[in-house]
C-alpha cells in the first residue's frame, strides 16, 4: 500500500555539489556544527533514556532535521522570539538553553525548563524568548500572530520565528494565522519543517497542492523552499527572510527534510521503506556539513573528534544533572495555576 514518495524538486540552493564558499568565521561555522552534533547526541541519549523509562509521555525527536533546526534558529538575535511545536528538543538547545535543564524537564524534575510540568512537548525558556512547544497540531500558529503584533505594538525590532510541521498546514488554524500575519505585515517568519510525513501520512495525502511554499502568495508573504538538509542553505534563506521581516514583510519558508526515526518513540514507522530512510540518511545534514567544511579546509578530523567528545560530555552531564534533580513536590500540585487567586473561594 505504501506509495513511492516523490522527492520534491528543490531550488538550487544546495551547496553539496558546488565548491563551498563560506563567508563566515571558522569559529561561527564550528559553532553551527557543534550545535547540530549536540542536538543529535541529545536526541540519541534522550531516546535511550526513554527506553530506560527515565522519560515518559510522547517523545518526538529532531533526528535528521538538525540542519533545518540550526539553520533557522541560530541566526536569530537575542530579542527575537520563537514559537514552536512538540518536536522541539533541538529547537530549545539551538536557542542556547543549557541541555541539562532540558534533560531535567524530560525527566520530569523540578529544575527542568518547565519545572517538570511540561515534559518533552512543552519546553519553554522565557529568558531566551523561546515561547514553548505545543501539542495541538497547528495550535501554536495563532500565538505567533500575537507575538508578532506585540513587537510592532511595543515598537521593538524583534522578529518571530514560527515553526510548524507540514502536516499542520492542512489545519484551519494554520490558515487563520498565516492570513493574519500577512494581513498585518507582521515581522514573522514561518518555517514549515517538511519532513514528508505527519505521522504515517505523506504530504501528498494531506495537501491538495503539496507545494507548501507557494502558499506564501496567498498569504501576502514571500514564499521560499529550501534544502533542509543543508545548514548553510537554510541559514542563508533565513537571513534573507529576517531582512524582509524587519521591513514588515513576512515569509513562508518550506524546509525539505526528513525525520530518521518514527513519529515518536512509539512509532515503528512501518509505512516507509528502509531504502527510503537510507537514501535520506545518505545526505545526513551533519555529515554533509562536515564534508563541506573539510573540503574548504575549515575543519580537521581532530577538531571534529574534539567536538564529538565535548558534546558527549555535555549530554552525559545533562543526564547526571537530570537524574539527581529532585521531583516536584506533590504538595505543589496547584502551584502556577493562577496568579494571585482570591482567597476563600473555590477555584
Amino acid at each position, binding site marked *: 500500500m505504501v506509495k513511492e514518495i516523490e522527492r520534491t524538486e528543490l531550488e538550487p540552493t544546495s551547496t553539496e555539489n558546488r565548491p563551498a564558499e563560506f563567508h563566515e568565521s571558522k569559529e561561527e561555522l564550528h559553532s553551527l556544527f557543534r550545535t547540530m552534533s549536540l542536538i543529535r547526541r541529545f536526541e540519541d541519549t534522550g531516546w535511550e533514556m526513554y527506553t530506560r523509562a527515565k522519560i515518559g509521555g510522547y517523545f518526538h525527536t529532531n533526528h535528521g532535521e538538525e540542519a533545518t533546526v540550526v539553520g533557522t534558529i541560530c541566526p536569530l538575535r537575542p530579542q527575537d522570539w520563537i514559537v514552536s511545536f512538540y518536536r522541539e528538543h533541538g529547537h530549545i538547545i539551538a536557542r542556547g538553553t543549557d541541555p541539562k535543564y532540558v534533560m531535567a524537564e524530560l525527566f520530569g524534575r523540578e529544575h527542568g525548563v518547565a519545572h517538570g510540568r511540561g515534559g518533552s512537548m512543552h519546553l519553554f525558556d522565557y529568558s531566551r524568548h523561546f515561547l514553548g512547544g505545543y501539542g495541538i497540531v497547528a495550535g501554536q500558529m495563532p500565538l505567533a500572530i500575537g507575538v508578532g503584533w506585540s513587537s510592532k505594538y*511595543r515598537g521593538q525590532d524583534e522578529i518571530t520565528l514560527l515553526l510548524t510541521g507540514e502536516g499542520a498546514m492542512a489545519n484551519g*488554524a494554520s490558515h487563520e494565522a498565516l492570513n493574519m500575519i500577512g494581513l498585518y505585515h507582521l515581522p514573522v517568519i514561518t518555517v514549515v519543517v517538511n519532513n514528508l510525513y505527519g505521522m504515517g501520512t505523506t504530504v501528498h495525502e494531506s495537501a491538495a497542492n503539496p507545494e507548501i511554499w507557494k502558499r506564501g502568495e496567498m498569504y501576502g508573504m514571500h514564499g521560499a523552499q529550501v534544502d533542509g538538509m543543508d545548514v548553510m542553505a537554510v541559514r542563508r534563506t533565513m537571513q534573507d527572510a529576517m531582512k524582509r521581516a524587519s521591513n514588515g514583510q513576512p515569509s513562508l519558508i518550506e524546509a525539505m527534510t526528513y525525520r530518521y526515526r518514527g513519529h515518536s518513540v512509539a512509532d515503528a514507522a512501518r509505512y516507509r521503506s528502509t531504502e527510503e530512510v537510507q537514501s535520506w540518511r545518505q545526505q545526513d545534514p551533519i555529515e554533509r556539513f562536515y564534508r563541506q567544511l573539510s573540503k574548504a579546509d575549515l575543519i580537521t578530523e581532530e577538531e571534529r573528534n574534539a567536538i564529538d567528545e565535548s558534546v558527549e560530555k555535555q549530554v552525559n552531564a545533562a543526564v547526571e544533572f537530570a537524574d539527581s534533580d529532585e521531583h516536584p513536590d506533590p504538595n505543589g500540585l496547584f502551584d502556577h495555576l493562577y496568579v494571585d487567586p482570591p482567597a476563600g473561594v473555590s477555584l
Partner: protein
Amino acid sequence: MPVITMREALHDALREEMIRDQNVFLLGEEIGRFGGSYKVTEGLIDEFGPERVLSTPIAESGIMGMATGAAMTGLRPVAEIMTINFIMVGMDQLVNNAAKIPYMFGGEARTPLVVRTPSGAAHQLTAQHSQSLEVWFAYVPGMYVVAPSTPADAKGLLKSSIRNDNPILFVENLVMYNEKGEVPEGDHVVPIGKADIKREGGDLSIITYSRMVHMALEAADVLAEEGISVEVVDLRSLRPLDVETMIASVKKTNRALVLHEGWYKYGAGAEVAAQIQEHAFDYLDHPVVRISGQEVPMPYSTVLERAAQPRMEDVVERARFMLGRK
C-alpha cells in the same frame, strides 16, 4: 450615582483601562469603524486608533491565539468574540493554550487576557445563535469565568478582569446592553470571585447569574406579595465559584433554587446544586431545584422560543411549591 446602560458601563470600563494602561488593546470582529456588533466599542477607534482597536477577519482561532501570544509578551489584550456561539471555532486557543500555558510551563509564562462575549438567547436568533456555553469554560482549571448582571458589576468586574493576570472569559448577555443601572463614579472596581446578595430574604435562596438575576428579582417581588421572602444570590462568576456566600445563604433560608439560561443537564446549575447538597445537606428542607432553558436547540418560531426559555411564572410556581404553598 449616574444611571447608565450596560453598554455604556462596559464601554467606559474599556476606555478607562485603555487610558490607564498603554498595554491594553482591543481586538475582534467589527469592533472598529463598525463600533462592535453590539456597539460596546463605539467611538474607541477614533480615540485610540486602529492599533489599539483592531478589527480582525472572521477568524476566532486567530483572534484568541493572537490575544494569547500578545499576552505572553507583555500586552493585555481584550478580545471580543461577537457572540459565544462563535467561540467553538476558536476555543482550542482559549482552553488548550491560554488556560494551560501558565501551568504547563511551570509558571514561566503568563496569559493575562480577557475574552468578552455575549451569551444567551433572544429575538428568534435560533439554534446556532442562542446558546449559553459559559459552563464549558467554567469546567476548565486555569480559566476564570465572570458574568455580571448589572451595569455597576459589569463596569467593576471588567476593570478588574483587565487588570487581572489570568485568562478570563467575560460573559455579557445578548439582550442586556440597554439595561440601565446606577454605577459609582470614579475608579469603580469589583473583585472577581465574590458573589453578591442582590436581595436579602429568609425563606428561599435563588442562586443565579447574568440576565436571570433580574428574573429572580421579579419573581421575588411577586413572592413577597404572598409573604415569601426570597434571597437572590448573584454568583457574578462561575469560576472562581463563591461557594461560601451561596452556602451561607442556603444555611439561612434552608431552600435553594438555581436559575439560569442554557440547558438543564450538565448546566451550571448542576454544579451549584451539587455544591449545596455537599455543604448544606443538613440544612436543606427541600431538594435543590433547578430551572433552566429547555433542552432543545433554540427554535425560531416565537411560540416555540417562548416555550424553550426559562419563565418567571415557573420560578414563582416552583418557589411556592418548595414552601408548601401552592
